């Protein structure tokens, strides 16, 4: 088997972080290819179910990114998201999921360099803890 590469689901806010990802691409910044981007309307749209579903389906890490506090397109979506994520992150760690698997960030659409840098950090962190071990739903093999 070829060397293991982490698979990471990134849930990016349409107005900021997705724009940053776009800008990073257009600016030809070097970034790791391990990230699978899903565009969401707002970080407030991200339901804890999405994060659990990603882990269940075998993602090695999840990264949620939205606008800086105060810059939300919907005024306050990311403030609600922040409370939700603070609880969720702590809760997942509490049941034994490594803290390196779940990441959150605020990246505005102008911060392409920050995007590339955080992407690098996220991939490195997940690479360090290795392939997902917990909460992965294994399919039963039927002959």
């Amino acid at each position, binding site marked *: 088997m070829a060397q293991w590469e982490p698979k990471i689901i990134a849930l990016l806010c349409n107005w900021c972080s997705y724009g940053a990802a776009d800008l990073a691409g257009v600016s030809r910044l070097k970034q790791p290819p391990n990230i699978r981007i899903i565009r969401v309307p707002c970080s407030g749209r991200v339901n*804890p*179910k999405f994060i*659990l*579903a990603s882990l*269940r389906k075998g993602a090695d890490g999840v990264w949620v990114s939205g606008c800086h*506090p*105060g810059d939300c397109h919907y005024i*306050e979506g990311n*403030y*609600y998201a*922040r*409370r*939700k*994520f*603070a*609880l*969720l*992150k*702590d*809760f*997942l*760690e*509490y*049941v*034994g*999921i*490594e803290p390196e698997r779940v*990441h*959150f*960030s*605020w990246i505005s659409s102008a911060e392409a360099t920050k995007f590339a840098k*955080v992407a690098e*950090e996220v991939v490195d962190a997940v690479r360090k803890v290795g392939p997902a071990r*917990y*909460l*992965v*739903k*294994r399919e039963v093999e039927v002959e």
Partner: protein
Amino acid sequence: MFEYTEKIREIVKRLLQDRVVDGVIGFRKGTVPMMNHPFFMKHIEQVPQLYWDSWCGVNLANYLPKRQDKVAVVAKGCDSRSIVVLIAENQITRDQLYIIGIPCKGMLDRRKIYDTVRTRGRDITDVMERDGLIVVTGKDFSLGLDRNQYLQENCAICLHRNPVIYDELVGEMVPEQEIDRYEDIRAIESMSSEKRWEYFSKLTEPCIRCYACRNACPFCYCPQCFVDESKPQWVGKTIDPTDTLTFHLLRAFHLAGRCTDCGSCERACPVGIRVRMFTKKLEKDVKELYGYEAGVQLGERPPLDTYRPEDPQDFIK
């Protein structure tokens, strides 16, 4: 506890006579010892059936969401907090309720009694209580047990024994306990992630996915629960360990900042899973991060329905 029963009957009789309420939700003596059932009544003739003792653990707030009529409800400390949360969530209005408050000394855990008595191969026919002593009787035996040893786990660490809202109390307020609620949670937090994972895998292993914990909870009133969703299906419906744990994680997360630790989930669990280990962690976090305790203050917004610009965000890059 007999005084409480008398007082409840007296209040309810008056309420029905004066037509203050359409109906009453209280307790009736169960057909087996240590299991009292919720009792819904509308007529004065039914008043003598009302009952109260230390086996009324069921949270009657569970029967309130989306009610149209005006009801009187018998509420312990935790139940009254659940009612406050339900009011905040627009499930019922304060005007629709006449709350008969019970200053509560803690409900008892029937499983603990069974464990003590049944190990000697005996069946229980009657359980009485007097002066801090539980008297368990069966064929050819009678046993006195110390009440404090047989409290439900959540009652032993309860900080709000007296109702936070009520229209009438059935007795004098009881003294509140001063106790460290989160000792066991901290013990788990100090373990390594492997150990924690092992602990929770073991904890949820006997789960048969009957959803009794969900059904007993006063806050699980969604018209469609996430476990019943099929397109997309977020949680598998099998008893595969991953599916089971996902269910417990999401169920607990839905109660973040709402759970009043009434212990209904644990009491309802047919296989005795300590599901409060999930909800209590979230309760602790909400208290530490946002200084909020569910259902203590009428008119306060739930913590996940509000924010402060200066909320902690060290975990965000």
